[in-house]
């Protein structure tokens, strides 16, 4: 009997031929990510556990992003605690203002196809875009990994999502994942692995796959995996010949006779621009149904949609146009590298010319801490991943999650607009 993608990754990690969903196994961790919000708690627990050293300090990556740049006095305390922890235990991979953790982990080469990685943030599932098993954990478990290099996991069942064909031009991978979340519902994949397959995903950029893997946690999934291909290899800095000769990576796809919990099948041509309406990520409606609703703010950014292709898509729409009066259009590239590339390509100039506020890479607005938080009765169209009550300000803010194209057109028109 064949295996799913996640079963292959786990089996190789523990040196077994195969694993079975439901089994509890202990895996060897290839990489961990700790971010600024939780580093003081990780540090406390690590010392409370009595560890004197990190199992492999180079396997830890410490990233400051949620609090960068500091907006409250407490934020700076977290940086100081992180720096002290890194110095004491010899952690060299520290990023203090390079971008959002989930962008950096693959962009800077920390996570490769087939790896197993854990992070203190729920959107750690993002690295499934390169075919890595990665997921979020709490700070006590993270402290345990730092001491032992190991973690127990339950081998998950797999839900396969098969999409074939060509997406309409006004539809992005964001619309695809939102529609899937709407169909699966917020708990439809709890404890399970999502496996994406089909010609539509083959044609996607790694960046577009990243958007989708990022949001798989919103239906409860433990991970969301794409098979690595030549594009993945190039993105991860794996030489074409090495990729071709790596039988594990070449075979890192669900077998035809693998056992799936469920298979969802779509035609790419059937997708339309959609939005997650207040205040659940699975409250999905076609943008055409909610078009015309006036907005106060538009946000383009986050680990979901702050990449070069997202900024470029917005710039293409905003070129020669202006952001509607009274609309605050906030643009946050996901990393310093993307910021620089967008600058060099003239994208930031186009966006700024149109009236955008361009901010430093970080998580501030998406997690409701800084950089454009909203108040009662305000409406925002945002490209990030959560529209929970109170997420980006008060609990009476109305958050609509949508694609960069929908966001850009909405910024121009000042009301929710179907992209053309």
């Amino acid at each position, binding site marked *: 009997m064949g295996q799913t993608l996640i079963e292959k990754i786990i089996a190789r990690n523990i040196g077994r031929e195969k694993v079975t969903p439901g089994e509890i196994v202990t895996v060897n961790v290839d990489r961990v990510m700790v971010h600024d919000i939780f580093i003081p*708690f990780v540090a406390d627990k690590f010392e409370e556990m009595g560890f004197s050293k990190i199992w492999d300090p180079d396997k830890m990556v410490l990233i400051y992003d949620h609090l960068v740049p500091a907006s409250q006095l407490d934020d700076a305390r977290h940086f100081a605690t992180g720096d002290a922890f890194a110095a004491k235990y010899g952690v060299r991979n520290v990023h203090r203002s390079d971008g959002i953790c989930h962008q950096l982990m693959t962009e800077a080469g920390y996570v490769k196809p087939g790896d197993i990685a854990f992070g203190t943030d*729920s959107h750690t599932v993002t690295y499934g875009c390169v075919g890595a098993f990665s997921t979020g954990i709490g*700070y*006590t478990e993270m402290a*345990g990994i730092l001491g032992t290099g190991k973690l127990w996991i339950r081998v998950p069942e797999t839900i396969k999502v098969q999409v074939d064909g060509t997406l309409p031009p006004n539809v992005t991978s964001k619309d695809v994942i939102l529609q899937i979340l709407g169909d699966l519902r917020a708990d439809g994949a*709890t404890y399970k692995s999502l496996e994406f397959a089909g010609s539509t995903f083959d044609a996607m950029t790694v960046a577009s796959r990243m958007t989708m893997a990022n949001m798989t946690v919103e239906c409860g999934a433990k991970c969301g995996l794409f098979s690595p291909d030549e594009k993945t290899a190039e993105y991860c800095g794996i030489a074409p010949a090495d990729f071709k000769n790596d039988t594990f990576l070449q075979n890192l796809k669900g077998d035809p006779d693998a056992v799936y919990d469920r298979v969802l099948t779509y035609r790419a041509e059937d997708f339309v621009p959609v939005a997650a309406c207040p205040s659940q990520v699975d409250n999905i409606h076609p943008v055409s149904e909610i078009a015309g609703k006036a907005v106060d703010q538009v946000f383009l950014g986050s680990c979901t949609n702050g990449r070069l292709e997202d900024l470029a898509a917005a710039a293409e729409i905003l070129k020669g146009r202006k952001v509607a009066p009274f609309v605050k259009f906030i643009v946050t590239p996901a990393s310093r590298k993307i910021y620089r590339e967008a600058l060099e390509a003239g994208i930031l100039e186009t966006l700024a010319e149109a009236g955008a506020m361009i901010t430093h890479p970080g998580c501030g607005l998406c*997690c409701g801490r800084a950089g454009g938080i909203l108040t009662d009765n305000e409406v925002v169209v945002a490209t990030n991943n959560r529209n929970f009550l109170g997420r980006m300000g008060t609990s009476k803010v109305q958050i609509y999650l949508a694609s960069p194209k929908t966001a850009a057109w909405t910024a121009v028109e000042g009301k929710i607009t179907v992209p053309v």
Partner: protein
Amino acid sequence: MGKVFRFDNDVDTDQIIASQYLLFPSVEEMAPHTFESLDADFAKNVRPGDFVVAAENFGCGSSREQAPSVLKALGVKAVLAKSFARIFYRNCINIGLPAIVCKDLYEHVHTGDDIELSMIEGTVTAGGQTFACTKLPAHLQGILDQGGLIASLDV
């Protein structure tokens, strides 16, 4: 015996403890803000030994361990839900707060009802009726029995 505080489907971790409180220096200082957007008086009204009862997907959203930690700090004895989001569930076990899947309880209780939990039997008694809960896998029960991950690692 403890009182029920009942919540619906898809209660997310932002609703349990909002992100603006996560940087408070201690869990005890965050605890008064538990469930603030859903029930502003929850922290005032809950007593040690009380229970949180919920429908599906309790604790979805972020990885914040502060979510189960504030409940534990307020003395919540256990969270009983139809289902849990996975990170919240792991965090509960790791900090020693029982997270128990009980499919039928939600429909039969309301906020303010008294219920009794037997961890050993794996049952809850409410209004004269007894409801069976799903038992934890042995590995997880072991962590919980020892009071959480720190105790069980025994470094």
